[in-house]
């Protein structure tokens, strides 16, 4: 009996301690389930949102678009706000998995730049509100690599074996291989895709690992010499380790937009729209940019942010027209090609 008593007493103590550390001071009138990418928001804004609207935010993150798609498809999750990338949005619209937004509840939509509205992935513009955009590029440690890197080929170079980190999602990884081989990111030619796969397969023994957000610690710590990731994240990494440099490869890259959407069947649609509206606010957008490094779609905020940047960061975040002309946006692919992607990816990792 003494064992149980001791256990119970201590557990109760811990429970009360933990509970007292928890917030309980705001009376919530509702909640909203948000799913985002890692390191993609300033989490201190949640407090502001909750204080202003009395809506509780349940925040979680997911690593890549494919994982998000699995979560939505499996039906076991019910997010109210998701922030997929362009190609996933077009897939979700095609498969009728998104709610149409009520823009009367999102007045701050007017602050979003016109160049981010009605893009190819959401032509009618009824399903999404652009959040942030950027490009993909190579990040390398200048103290560990002497040469100037200019091409995607560096990621496949045996000279850097054991020091290369590759991105851990199928479209980005296969896309990089395609770009290096000179093909389109959105090719539906099976031959080209298999060529890209072969390249990735040859690369695998040279890799230190496949990573997504783990790349932050690894690059900042000097654990690996070269990797590939998103421009905004590079700014954060650079802040923590000035030896890092960003490369906009000569073959071109992927230009992406991540936008906020509401999955079909969401129970908290109004709360979700309130959240989206909140994010579009200029002051909130600035805070998000400061913390994540990315550029938002809010025109005013972007201008404010660009003025704070030094020349190098500016060139990373706002690429030249010349580079942008070589970049492509991911489009949704036909069903059978998507299946091929799945198959190739699992085969590569296996």
């Amino acid at each position: 009996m003494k064992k149980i008593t001791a256990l119970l007493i201590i557990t109760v103590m811990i429970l009360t301690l933990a509970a007292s550390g928890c917030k309980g001071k705001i009376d919530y009138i509702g909640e909203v389930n948000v799913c985002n990418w890692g390191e993609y928001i300033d989490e201190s804004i949640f407090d502001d949102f909750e204080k202003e609207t009395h809506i509780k935010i349940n925040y979680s993150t997911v690593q890549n678009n494919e994982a998000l798609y699995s979560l939505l498809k499996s039906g076991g999750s019910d997010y109210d706000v998701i922030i997929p990338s362009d190609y996933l949005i077009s897939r979700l619209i095609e498969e009728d998995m998104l709610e149409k937004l009520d823009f009367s509840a999102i007045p701050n939509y007017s602050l979003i730049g016109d160049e981010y509205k009605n893009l190819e992935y959401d032509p009618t513009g009824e399903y999404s509100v652009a959040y942030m955009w950027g490009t993909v590029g190579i990040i390398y440690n200048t103290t560990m690599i002497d040469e100037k890197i200019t091409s995607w080929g560096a990621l496949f170079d045996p000279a850097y074996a054991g020091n290369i980190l590759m991105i851990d999602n199928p479209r980005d990884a296969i896309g990089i291989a395609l770009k290096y081989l000179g093909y389109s990111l959105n090719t539906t030619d099976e031959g080209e895709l298999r060529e890209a796969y072969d390249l990735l397969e040859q690369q695998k023994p040279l890799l230190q690992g496949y990573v997504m957000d783990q790349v932050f610690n690894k690059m900042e710590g000097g654990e690996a010499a070269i990797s590939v990731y998103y421009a905004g994240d590079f700014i954060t990494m650079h802040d923590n380790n000035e030896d890092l440099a960003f490369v906009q490869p000569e073959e071109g890259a992927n230009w992406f937009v991540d936008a906020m959407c509401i999955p079909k069947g969401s129970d908290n649609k109004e709360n979700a729209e309130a959240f989206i509206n909140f994010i579009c606010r200029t002051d909130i957008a600035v805070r998000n940019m400061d913390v994540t490094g990315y550029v938002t779609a809010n025109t005013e905020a972007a201008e404010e942010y660009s003025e704070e940047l030094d020349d190098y960061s500016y060139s990373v975040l706002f690429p030249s027209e010349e580079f942008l002309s070589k970049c492509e946006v991911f489009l949704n692919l036909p069903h059978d090609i998507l299946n091929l992607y799945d198959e190739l990816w699992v085969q590569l990792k296996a």
Partner: protein
Amino acid sequence: MKIKALSAPYILWMALFVAAPIVLITVYAFTTSSGEFTLNNFSRMGSYLPVFGRSFLLALIATVICLLLGYPLSYILSRESPRFQQIALMLIMLPMWMNYLLRTYAWLSILENTGLLNRLLSALHLPTLNIINTPSAVVLGMVYNFLPFMVLPIYSVITKIDRSLIEAAQDLGAPPANVFRRVIFPLSLPGVLSGITMVFVPAVSTFVISQLLGGSKSMLLGDLIEMQFLGTAYNPHLGSAIALVMMIIVLVCMLVMNRFGQGEEQAVIL
């Protein structure tokens, strides 16, 4: 008698939450997303044989290492003073109460290229080791996490061996090596089998260790299944098929092992 009825709520629970899910997995394994019967999921598994092979190989290596480390440790502990045994047991159980993920994550600080181990080696002018992101790191992670699961059952059984049997053998003139080989070891087998099960099964199906320590390069069965449900390739039917096969293989392994052991003691856990 009325007592039997006490188990009724649990029997219902088992039907709902133990039996039904297994039936569901079997159904999913044999169907496509549109509900037709198919053996396609199983034939697709052929291309994942390397994953099966790797998982079983690494799990086997980890189990053997755990046995080689765990058995002597249990034996040594069983011969120490009771106070020492109590403290030692406490110390072995303590990491088990700390989070499994944290225990795995801890090795990153040590094994990374810029980690503590390599720093120490460089300081001593020794060559650095590149263990991280290799299958060896995964095995290390498995051994580290599951060693207590091997030690506890074996220790539990060894300490329960009737002292008089050992003394009788010694009285009859047997040298210590024979006493061990003929008396102690056979009697400790139920614990050994229990330990092997408790290490091999989680080792073959883990999915976090290979991601954290293996750099996501050596995909294991656990990763493969997770990918099909919540991960990058959504196909619960394929995932169910793989899970089903894994379950059957593990079941067969254990039935085989039970043939070797006496098989009556089920509660050799703690």
